[in-house]
């Protein structure tokens, strides 16, 4: 028995592969047809092949539990999610626009703060932000770019439009999984890559490398680029190693680096000390430099901020860039785009209530059962309340939290997240909710990944897609043309 698409019902949600009439969307026609041609045993064989591939490739992520850190195999669904090239191009332009404006905004905050003086953004939002770093005031990073690598979470609402859910401007992760998902899918569904116009995604590591080279303070032929990881116990260590390998750069930990008396950064090599030009750092601001931030941090490098401020090393992302991925600042991004670029935002924001505003706060408290409440500065889906899935007790608890620290909470309507067919049992396909995290690069030039990392909530009805909380992922196909070009 093969998949019975007549039984597939995404309810009233927008489905990525199947249209409202029950037919496959243009970008998914060949895929759906191909899947229907596989019987239950064949589907199961493909699923097992994917599982074995992941196991052998050692694609893993680390989960923190009370019993210690466990390396889990990457949860993966073999059915890809498709998006038409046409729609993607529009979205990609919107993502570049957004990051450009955000970088201008960060630069302004650490300089004249014109946007505050002009009354677009209230001053206290910066003053109270956990991620505003006074140490960065007056810095002028290359090309005016603070956030060189950004992971922006997009969701589709029931109207089929993409909305930005949040921007991750600190140390966004997931891009290696995006690349690995593609290699797995190529092994599992090779037939489709022959005929289907699936856009390649493999150029990300070289684009990232070019971006990092473009911000080197020394204008030399081969600047020394390194990826800096907090170490093997970090949940994204796999990705740090993967990117270093793909770019052909060194993967360093804080203990491999030292700042000299000349305020330059050096790495310890078998031949002695070697100067480092660009650090793609995957550790948080607070652990970068024990001289300036967390005194107890052993992950960082004493004097790193000194070297950065002296202009002797570039840090990507720059310290302090996180001020713009605050969920309160998020609410102002459309205004930020209009203010700096004099353009209308190409991708919409989700309606956001700021609990700091008394009117908004009252609305949130009154409607808490319908809303999603998020702390302003957490990531990974921690500390969130999903109103419709919560108990009265949890709601009361969050109302207390909001009242105690209103600046730290925002709320959004519970979105009708789009779904996509997902293999949930032997030959059984059901709709599961998902989001999309594209990665945007900005240095001298900008670049957006072709698609991104699709994360899917594997539990029926669940809206939580984070891998740390039971989420899985899928390959994401940007499809050029439909069936007409393909055959």
């Amino acid at each position, binding site marked *: 028995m093969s998949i019975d698409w007549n039984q597939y019902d995404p309810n009233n949600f927008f489905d990525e592969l199947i249209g409202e009439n029950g037919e496959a969307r243009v970008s998914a026609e060949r895929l759906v047809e191909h899947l229907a041609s596989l019987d239950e045993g064949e589907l199961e064989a493909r699923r097992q092949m994917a599982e074995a591939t992941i*196991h052998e490739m050692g694609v893993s992520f680390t989960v923190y539990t009370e019993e210690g850190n466990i390396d889990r195999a990457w949860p993966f669904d073999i059915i890809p999610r498709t998006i038409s090239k046409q729609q993607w191009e529009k979205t990609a332009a919107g993502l570049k626009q957004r990051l450009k404006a955000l970088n201008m905004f960060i630069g302004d905050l650490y300089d004249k703060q014109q946007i505050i003086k002009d009354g677009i953004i209230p001053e206290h939002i910066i003053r109270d932000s956990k991620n505003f770093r006074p140490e960065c005031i007056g810095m002028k990073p290359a090309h005016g770019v603070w956030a060189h690598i950004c992971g922006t979470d997009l969701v589709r609402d029931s109207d089929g439009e993409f909305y930005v859910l949040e921007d991750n401007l600190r140390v966004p992760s997931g891009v290696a999984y995006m690349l690995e998902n593609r290699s797995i899918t190529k092994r599992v569904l090779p037939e489709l890559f022959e005929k289907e116009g699936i856009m390649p995604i493999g150029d990300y590591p070289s684009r990232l490398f070019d971006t990092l080279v473009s911000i080197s303070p020394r204008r030399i032929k081969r600047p020394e680029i390194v990826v800096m990881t907090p170490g*093997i116990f970090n949940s994204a260590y796999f990705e740090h190693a993967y990117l270093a*390998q793909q770019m052909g750069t060194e993967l360093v930990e804080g203990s491999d680096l030292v700042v*000299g*008396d000349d305020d330059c950064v050096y*790495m310890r090599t078998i031949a002695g000390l070697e100067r480092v030009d660009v650090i793609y750092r995957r550790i948080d601001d607070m652990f970068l430099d024990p001289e300036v931030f967390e005194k107890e941090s052993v992950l960082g490098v004493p004097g790193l901020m000194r070297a950065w401020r002296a202009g002797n090393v570039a840090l990507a992302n720059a310290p302090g860039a996180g001020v713009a991925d605050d969920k309160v600042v998020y609410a102002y991004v459309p205004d930020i785009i209009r203010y700096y670029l004099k353009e209308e935002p190409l991708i919409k924001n989700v309606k956001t209530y700021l609990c700091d505003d008394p009117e908004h706060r009252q609305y949130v408290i009154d409607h808490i059962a319908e809303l999603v409440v998020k702390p302003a500065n957490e990531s990974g889906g921690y500390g969130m309340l999903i109103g419709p899935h919560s108990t009265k007790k949890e709601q009361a608890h969050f109302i207390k939290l909001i009242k105690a620290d209103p600046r730290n909470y925002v709320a959004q309507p519970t979105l009708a997240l789009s779904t996509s067919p997902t293999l949930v049992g032997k030959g059984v396909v059901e709709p599961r909710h998902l989001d999309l995290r594209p990665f945007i690069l900005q240095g001298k030039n900008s670049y957006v990944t072709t698609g991104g990392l699709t994360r899917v909530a594997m539990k029926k009805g669940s809206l939580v897609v984070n891998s740390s909380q039971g989420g899985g992922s899928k390959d994401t196909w940007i499809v050029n043309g439909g069936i007409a070009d393909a055959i």
Partner: protein
Amino acid sequence: MLSKVAERLYWIARHLERVENTARLVSVYDSLLFDLPGEFDISWYNLVTLNSAEKLFESRYKNHDERNVVKFLLADDTNPSSMLSALKMVRENVRTTRDVLPQESWEMVNELSIYATKNIQQGINRSARHEFLTNIIKGCQQINGLLTGTMCRDASWQFLRLGRNLERADMTTRLLDAGAAAQLEGEVETDMHISQVVWGNVLRSSSAELSYRRTMRSAVHEKDVAEFLLEDPDFPRSFRFCIDSMINGIKNLPNNAAAKKALHTMLEVEFELDSDKRLGFEFREYLNQQQVNLGNLHQVFNQTWFAMLKRGTE
């Protein structure tokens, strides 16, 4: 190349060599048991003595029987030199040097770890032990083959080479020492038959049996065996070959003066094998000295290339 990466590569090779050596040793003892008539009491515990692990063993087990020894050598995670512990170290170090190794090495190491962990019981029980150990040895050779066939002969390769040869040289001296020890015990009865069994076993443990016969063209004889395993320039597990390999390995590494000196010192210490005396205490003394030299050599490597000492800007 980062000091830390160099160090990890060196340890990958050392531990991988240890995994293979351990599997080989247990395998040789296993088959030896079938060859010996009942009156010979070859003791599995020799393998513990060989690895200088008596103290650790005593703290864990009472009986010196086969099961405990094999368990200790293959599976015990409190024994840092057990096969599984060494394999775990290989895996951890490969995991943190994936950026300088061929992509498939991680997959292979991962596969081997999964296989070893899943089937370890087969190694402990007698019935399927041979197949299990053969697969482990194959897995190690597959990984070494991949590295040999695909890696640039740059610094990364040289550190792997140093680790492999240092570990190998160490094992060769240990095997010879075990032979000499057994010989001394046996001499009480001056039974020549024991000598044949003992030294044949030393050769088999180093996979040297056939090469020995082809090169030395003689039956198994203690001094010939010692000469072959110490001085043969072409056999890849001979002490001499390992030292030569390391001398070549450091040739293009930076700041290699101290390592060069340490290596040449080891070639200068010779043992007079021509005398009529049988291999006894003096021979063991010599082997012991070379083991100390190997330990010093490791220290030199460590200080020259790995030590994370805070150096000023140079």
